[in-house]
């Protein structure tokens, strides 16, 4: 058999593409072990110090904590509001449907800089002092549409007969929601919440316009970039990455295993 380029070109390309996608991650990870001095530009030797003493660099851990706090609060709010809208969009008939869809679509189609500058100018015009509150307001705003889209897909794939069966079996509307609708929507709501948290946690542009003196992790990195990002920031970035990627892979393997068991049960 002759060597077929067509057969191997695409897999080979895919491998190269993944290398390209993952290089900066590997770089960040490697340099989290750099025995750096002041800035973290050139390789000076391997050390665990940055990992052990991650809060040693002033500001890093505070910024990280602030980002987590903002992420959690924004996620909870955006998920509640967004889930309500998603249910209304799929399950109810109302006249303003297309306007509602447009209003939800627009924030996703607006460049972050416009969202950030717009809110900042509104806060400025209203005389609101920027701080934690304004950042959270901004994050809920840009996460909301993404939550709606994610939950909506789940609601749409939920057979309405299930809810009807609930009420047929003597459950009041509130009980149907609690015992049937909500448990079945949970996976969709969870992935929407994770998405919202990821968006909030990594946001820099909108935050930069509305945070005032509040330092989030991306803001810290941006400010530090002019003189070189400290290795401790690489540690936090790498740690978050590892937690997230392990989580995702576990979830995936688990659902693959469930699938197999379901098929075997048949």
């Amino acid at each position: 058999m002759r060597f077929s380029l067509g057969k191997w070109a695409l897999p080979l390309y895919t491998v190269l593409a993944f290398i390209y996608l993952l290089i900066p991650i590997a770089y960040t990870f490697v340099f989290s072990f750099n025995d750096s001095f002041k800035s973290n530009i050139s390789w000076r030797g391997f050390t665990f110090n940055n990992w052990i003493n991650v809060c040693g660099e002033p500001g890093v851990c505070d910024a990280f904590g602030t980002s987590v706090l903002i992420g959690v609060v924004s996620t909870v709010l955006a998920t509640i509001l967004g889930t309500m809208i998603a249910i209304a969009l799929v399950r109810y008939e109302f006249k303003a449907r297309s306007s509602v869809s447009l209003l939800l679509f627009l924030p996703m189609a607006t460049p972050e800089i416009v969202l950030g500058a717009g809110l900042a100018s509104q806060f400025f015009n209203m005389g609101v002092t920027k701080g934690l509150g304004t950042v959270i307001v901004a994050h809920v705003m840009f996460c909301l549409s993404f939550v709606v889209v994610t939950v909506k897909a789940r609601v749409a794939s939920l057979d309405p007969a299930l809810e009807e069966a609930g009420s047929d079996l003597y459950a009041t509307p509130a009980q149907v929601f609690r015992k049937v609708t909500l448990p079945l929507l949970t996976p969709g709501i969870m992935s929407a919440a994770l998405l919202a948290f990821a968006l909030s946690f990594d946001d820099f542009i909108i935050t930069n316009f509305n945070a005032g003196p509040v330092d989030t992790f991306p803001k810290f990195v941006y400010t530090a970039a002019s003189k070189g990002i400290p290795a401790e920031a690489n540690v936090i970035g790498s740690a978050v990455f590892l937690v997230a990627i392990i989580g995702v892979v576990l979830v995936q393997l688990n659902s693959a295993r469930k699938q197999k068991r379901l098929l075997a049960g048949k």
Partner: protein
Amino acid sequence: MATEFVARGSNLDLVGIRKEFPGFTAIDDLDLHIPAGEFFALLGPSGCGKTTTLRLVAGLEEPTSGQILIGGKDVSHTKPHERPVNTVFQSYALFPHMSVLENVAFGLKQRKIADPLKRASEALDLVQLGHLAGRRPQQLSGGQQQRVALARALVNRPSLLLLDEPLGALDLKLRREMQIELKAIQIEVGLTFLHVTHDQEEAMDMADTVAVMNKGRIEQMGAPEKLYDRPKTVFVSKFLGQSNLFIGKIVETSANSLSIDVAGYKISVPKDRAEKHTGKIAIGVRPEKADLFQTKPADSSSENLIGPGEVKDIRFTGVSNQFLVDVPNIGLVTVFEQNEGNSTVELGDQVWISWKVEHSFGLADLPADTLDEE
């Protein structure tokens, strides 16, 4: 819970029910009485309003006007969870996040009935699925899911059990098996069953009474044998089995029979088997009631005879041979002959068709494509 739950089923009465959806009327002035303990089938093509009727009874839709009475009590405006009815949904609608047992116990728990799990396992035993109580619904086959849905509804001992095309998703063989089982269960528990289906064989096989629905109205209602033997409208004669229809004018009326002139042939029908006694009428006969002759039989006052016509098509279905005969001025006539292994009729043969006068039936209406001459 205010509603009482009876063990033997209740009457269901629909009085002047009308249901409009934006842009169309699904049900138009429907009256229906279903006696307690009966297996009642609503039969009709899709879009005829049968599923809407069922959803109205379940409380999943509200009637535009009219009353729904269960056991004599007006439930027209009560919510589904307040009605003593349970439904077996077409898609089964089993809760995927609960085990089979939890599914069956759901209604009992809602009503705070003692020992829900014990009762639920008993109900599962009734449908022979006790051994699968711990599984998730997704792990069961279609037939098993169907039985769980049945158990989940039956365990509540509803006054009325609603079945929405419950066998629709099963393959033919399983369907026939489940028909027998469903009927046996109905007799055992003695509840009132309201079964919605588009499968005429299923309806005729199981139901005590069949109502044929078309365009939001009930066209005819009665015992399956009666309905088949004496359809009253063109729709019923065609939807419930097959019929040959002949259109002609009534030319002679005697004490107990009518003579109709169909393209020059004289066709008779007993007076008590005709819905009208003057003017233009559609006369029908079932294909299996007609016989083929290769030579012209002698005229007889007890038989109707047409022909000769040419055999255009012969279909072999195993149990019977189905012939399509083109009779000049009348058109195509279908005849089923039992396959007794002695048929000599071949394609292109000239044949005569005859049937007993008492097998004819006269319909109240004419086929939609009949030309209105004169």
